[in-house]
């Protein structure tokens, strides 16, 4: 379980997170919504320990992430798969080596036979052709890069998956493919997921619960139906833009 309590973060004079309280229960998929630049990705980076809060606590499975020591943090991160906004694939490595790096167990990583099997399995899970493993990131389309990023994130069989804008920059057809993939992975490998997005339609399709981040605070958490029924002005304003799509998806 992921619990954030009173998390604050500022960069210089700019307050990005201003007392965030946020929960994710085991096995559920939560979509974190909010306009661009409201600190959604910053919040995700706090969960994996890439950033430390100025105040507040982030507790995952009872561990305070900000207080983990170096080795504990490495072990903690092995339980989390992080899908970066633009894939963040290593350009100097081919797809096979990129996905292989996701195998966090050092013995399994070194076992070439296991690595080949696991990479092929992950590539299949994200609906890519086996031939893609020999390609370099520069030879892939945006949608394929995102899928390879997801394959790398699941290669270590994590307990949690954190998606940072998995559909941003994609056309609607490819965005739907990624949404369906996220949904299928949640069902097939049974992970707990947090998906940062400003795509309301995708969030309504994929998530069990939604949370809206605005001006550094979570203004509402609830099911898609609760969001649709909400009178909160910020929720209404945010959903209005994509309201028909959201209703359609719900």
């Amino acid at each position: 379980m992921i619990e954030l309590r009173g998390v604050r973060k500022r960069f210089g004079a700019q307050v990005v997170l201003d007392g965030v309280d946020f929960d994710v229960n085991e096995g559920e998929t939560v979509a974190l919504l909010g306009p661009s630049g409201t600190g959604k990705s910053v919040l995700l980076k706090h969960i994996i320990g890439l950033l430390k809060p100025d105040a507040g606590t982030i507790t995952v499975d009872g561990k305070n992430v900000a207080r983990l020591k170096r080795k504990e943090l490495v072990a903690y991160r092995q339980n989390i798969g992080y899908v970066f906004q633009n894939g963040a694939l290593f350009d100097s490595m081919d797809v096979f080596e990129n996905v292989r790096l996701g195998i966090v167990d050092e013995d399994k990583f070194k076992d070439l036979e296991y690595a080949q099997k696991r990479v092929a399995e992950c590539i299949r899970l994200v609906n890519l052709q086996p031939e893609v493993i020999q390609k370099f990131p520069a030879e892939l389309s945006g949608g394929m890069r995102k899928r390879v990023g997801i394959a790398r994130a699941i290669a270590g069989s994590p307990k949690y998956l954190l998606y940072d804008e998995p559909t941003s920059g994609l056309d609607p057809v490819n965005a739907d493919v990624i949404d369906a993939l996220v949904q299928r992975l949640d069902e097939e490998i049974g992970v707990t997921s947090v998906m940062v997005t400003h795509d309301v339609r995708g969030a309504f399709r994929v998530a069990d619960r939604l949370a809206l981040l605005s001006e550094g605070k979570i203004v509402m958490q609830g099911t898609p139906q609760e969001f649709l029924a909400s009178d909160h002005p910020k929720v209404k304003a945010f959903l209005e833009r994509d309201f028909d799509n959201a209703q359609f998806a719900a």
Partner: protein
Amino acid sequence: MATASLDIRQVAGRFFLDGTTQVGRFTFFVGETLRAVPEVRIWWPRFIDEAWNIGVGSMFLVLLIAAFAGAVTALQAGYQFTGSLPYYIVGTLVVSAVILELGPVLTALVLSGRIGARYAAQLGTMRVTEQIDALESLGRSPYSHLVLPRVLAALVMIPMMTMVANAAGILAGWWSVKLVLPVTNMDFVYGAQWFFRPWDAYYSFIKSIFFGGTIGLVSCFMGIGTQQGAEGVGRAATGAVVSSSVLALLLDVLVTKVLLNQ
């Protein structure tokens, strides 16, 4: 007047704070790099790749610069000394100038441009495209995977390239002086040996180790601290070249003072 003095104090205060922050960050960076040393199985293969890249990739440039510097030194010495000093002095001058100063310093300046910009741009691009964050999110250290192999490659290869540059500079000087002056091989070798002490070669090598370490550390530090997209990568690459070149020149004076003028 009071406002002007306040402004100066603010500027000085900000400069001091920025300076101490950078020193703190650099110290942390060096500490993290040293902590990665035991992870030999991770950095060794990458170190070999980087060392090969520096050696093969920079060889032509280093040979070219060193050869021209050696040749010009020999020709200018010949021009200045003709009629006033014996010709074998040209051998003395070429060997001393190349080994003591031109070889190490020119190699450092050329490689701070070539390697410094390359390291800072590579790591900077990896930083702004979140590849370094991705590495950390996978529980892997960017210091053992990215920084240490590059720093060690610079530390090992720059001294080796300096030795190659020294040889190229001396040979080019020898060859070019023979073309324009009546200097025999025996004259040149006699002059070269006249003032030569083995310590000069050690000094050249030790100095280049300092240059290699500085170029590797500074350019990786600039690269890994990159912020703000393509603009930031450009700033990091420029900063790496300028800082490592200036530091190499400062170290040149310092190491010379310590090793030659005790």
